């Protein structure tokens, strides 16, 4: 007679899938190494030396991560690690390709004593951050225990966070505030989202998204019944009581306020989406989605009317019609756009006066409008167009012409060299990670973990949507990192921790239920009467 454990295992694919995971991981390695090889062959005509440094480094790291995953979370989802490694590897290869210091032409020119501009793409730095990111993954998987053994000494489980819900929410807000603090905060490219930590610059907002997921999950898991059952009905929509929704709205307003002050619209959009989706997951009410989208529309409309929110207005204007802004455009109060690009007379006038940024000065001091430049967005679109369906091939396009082609616009850079065919693969890879995360949420036994896993996967999906939609002009462009692809340490670290949490939770959800100690039928009840 088959035991129930066998039956469960027969019905659910809850087996160890470590060999499948290993096979896919090796495949991801092959992918990364062939990307490096293609870059080298196309650019310098030979297999690059970087193949051994970067590819080798990634191989060692990935197998270390795999070893830890098999040893400590044997029932973990087989796809999460290989998919993340593949994305990280492709991103690394693309940054290596954009880091022109690594090309042969560049080295010859340098040897000839020519003076060269230093470009900002930094492949060794990215490899170092990959190392740190995967290191954090390993530490997080090692550190966290199964949720059914909460009494073990020093045990940290994903559920531990539930105990510190409010503290974590507060930490999230403090993290967001840090860049405003004078002294440690700093402004790069118009957004004040970085802080100094010794020689490093860290983007605390990347970690805030994880902290906020924990806060929303911890809070909603206690209040969801009250929120979905008790409340006033206004028309077809039932609103929860103020005391149930209050704290969450306070935290949310704090976050959005901070982000609007920092002009970090992408992150604001991300948190808003997170808030709505977690309310939806917790209360299972579709009305929340409509309320959320409605609030967003109202918010954006109000923002376009407020004078100090001019940049929102401008973002939307650039999105609708980027052409007049190419190389500099000036949005006047009446909604007209006056080009101030280097071909215009007014630009030349300020240039003749020796102004360091003639377009900006011409717009602000002479015309009295709001200056902006759509060249980056449009160059990104040109590069997508250049790529077409099959792409130019890695190392054969000219993606470096777009500013920030290695971070915000890496998706366009990949689009130029891999084409639509390659981009579809990247999007599918993200979709698969999100699907595995949602599957983990469905399989999780604990309601807090359900919300946690659901929120974490949703935040990843939304982040990809906001940045990919932005650079392809589907929605107004707002700066966010492309998870695992963009150059940047904070983003890599936060996303690897995110994967570690999902791996641990999927192990917890997929492992077979503990076997009963006695297998001799029902528990025998001895009557005391």
């Amino acid at each position: 007679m088959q035991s129930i454990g066998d039956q469960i295992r027969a019905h659910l694919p809850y087996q160890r899938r470590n060999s499948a995971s290993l096979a896919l991981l090796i495949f991801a390695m092959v992918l990364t190494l062939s990307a490096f090889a293609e870059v080298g062959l196309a650019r310098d005509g030979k297999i690059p030396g970087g193949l051994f440094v970067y590819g080798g480094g990634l191989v060692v790291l990935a197998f270390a991560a795999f070893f830890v995953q098999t040893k400590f979370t044997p029932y973990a989802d087989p796809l999460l690690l290989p998919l993340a490694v593949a994305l990280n590897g492709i991103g690394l290869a693309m940054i290596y390709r954009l880091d022109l210091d690594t090309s042969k032409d560049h080295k010859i020119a340098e040897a000839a004593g020519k003076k060269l501009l230093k470009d900002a793409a930094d492949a060794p730095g990215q490899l170092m951050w990959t190392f740190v990111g995967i290191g954090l993954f390993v530490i997080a998987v090692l550190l966290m225990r199964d949720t059914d053994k909460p009494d073990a000494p020093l045990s940290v489980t994903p559920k531990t966070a539930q105990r510190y819900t409010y503290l974590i929410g507060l930490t999230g807000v403090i993290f967001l505030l840090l860049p405003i603090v004078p002294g440690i905060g700093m402004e790069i490219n118009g957004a004040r989202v970085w802080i100094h930590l010794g020689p490093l610059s860290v983007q605390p907002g990347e970690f805030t998204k994880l902290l906020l997921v924990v806060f929303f999950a911890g809070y909603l898991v206690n209040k969801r019944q009250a929120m979905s059952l008790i409340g006033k009905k206004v028309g077809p929509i039932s609103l929860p009581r103020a005391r149930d929704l209050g704290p969450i709205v306070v935290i949310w307003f704090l976050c959005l306020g901070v982000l609007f002050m920092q002009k970090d619209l992408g992150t604001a959009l991300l948190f808003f989406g997170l808030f709505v989706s977690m309310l939806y997951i917790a209360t299972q009410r579709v009305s929340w989605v409509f309320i959320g989208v409605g609030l967003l529309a109202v918010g954006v409309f109000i923002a376009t009317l407020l004078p100090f929110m001019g940049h929102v207005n401008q973002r939307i204007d650039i999105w609708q019609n980027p052409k007049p802004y190419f190389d500099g455009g000036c949005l006047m109060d009446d909604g007209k756009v006056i080009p101030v690009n280097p071909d215009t007379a007014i630009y030349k006038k300020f240039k003749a006066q020796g102004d360091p940024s003639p377009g900006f000065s011409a717009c602000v001091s002479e015309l009295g409008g709001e200056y902006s430049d759509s060249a980056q967005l449009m160059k990104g679109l040109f590069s997508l167009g250049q790529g077409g369906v099959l792409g130019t091939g890695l190392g054969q396009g000219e993606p470096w012409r777009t500013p920030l082609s290695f971070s915000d616009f890496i998706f366009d850079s990949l689009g130029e060299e891999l084409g639509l065919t390659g981009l579809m693969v990247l999007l599918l890879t993200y979709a698969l990670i999100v699907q595995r995360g949602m599957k983990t949420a469905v399989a999780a036994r604990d309601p807090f973990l359900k919300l946690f896993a659901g929120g974490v996967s949703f935040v990843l999906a939304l982040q990809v949507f906001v940045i990919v939609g932005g650079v392809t002009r589907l929605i107004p462009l707002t700066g966010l990192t492309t998870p695992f692809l963009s150059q940047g340490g904070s983003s890599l670290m936060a996303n690897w921790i995110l994967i570690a949490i999902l791996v641990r939770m999927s192990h917890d959800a997929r492992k077979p239920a503990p076997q009963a100690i006695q297998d001799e039928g029902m528990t025998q009840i001895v009557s005391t009467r």
Partner: protein
Amino acid sequence: MTEFTLTLIKLAFLAVLWLFVIAAVGVIRADLFGSKAAARAANRESKPRPPKPRQQQPKPQRQPRSAQHAAPTKLVVVQGERAGTVIDLTGVPITIGRANDATLVVTDDYASSRHARIYAQDGQWIVEDLGSTNGTYLGRTKVSQPMPVPPGVPVRIGKTVIELRK
């Protein structure tokens, strides 16, 4: 490197990319198209064992069964607001009630938030009342202690009636 070679390399790389995604989807095929693959894997594993007398008879279903009972495979709601709902029995316990975290959520004033639980034990499905206000009925008997549920016997929870079916 000629242009032609580079084009070939480019296409080969795109092919590798797609193969990777297809391989990844292959790994989770069991999730996407039911658990046939997993069930087959389990059957294959159990083959080397000495065949049991009952398993020698031809059976339409390939799911493993217990020796004494032909195990029901689904739970069907036959009456009530959720009538027509079918839940596959996978060995995971099923909770019924008004609470949102119940497996089968019933919106019924006569049901408690955590009304009853149906779980598998030794190849049988057992119904247990979780201290509900209005009680759970198996056929015509009130469920006061965990009782095995034979297939086809109605279980009444408030206005909802469910049945286990093969």
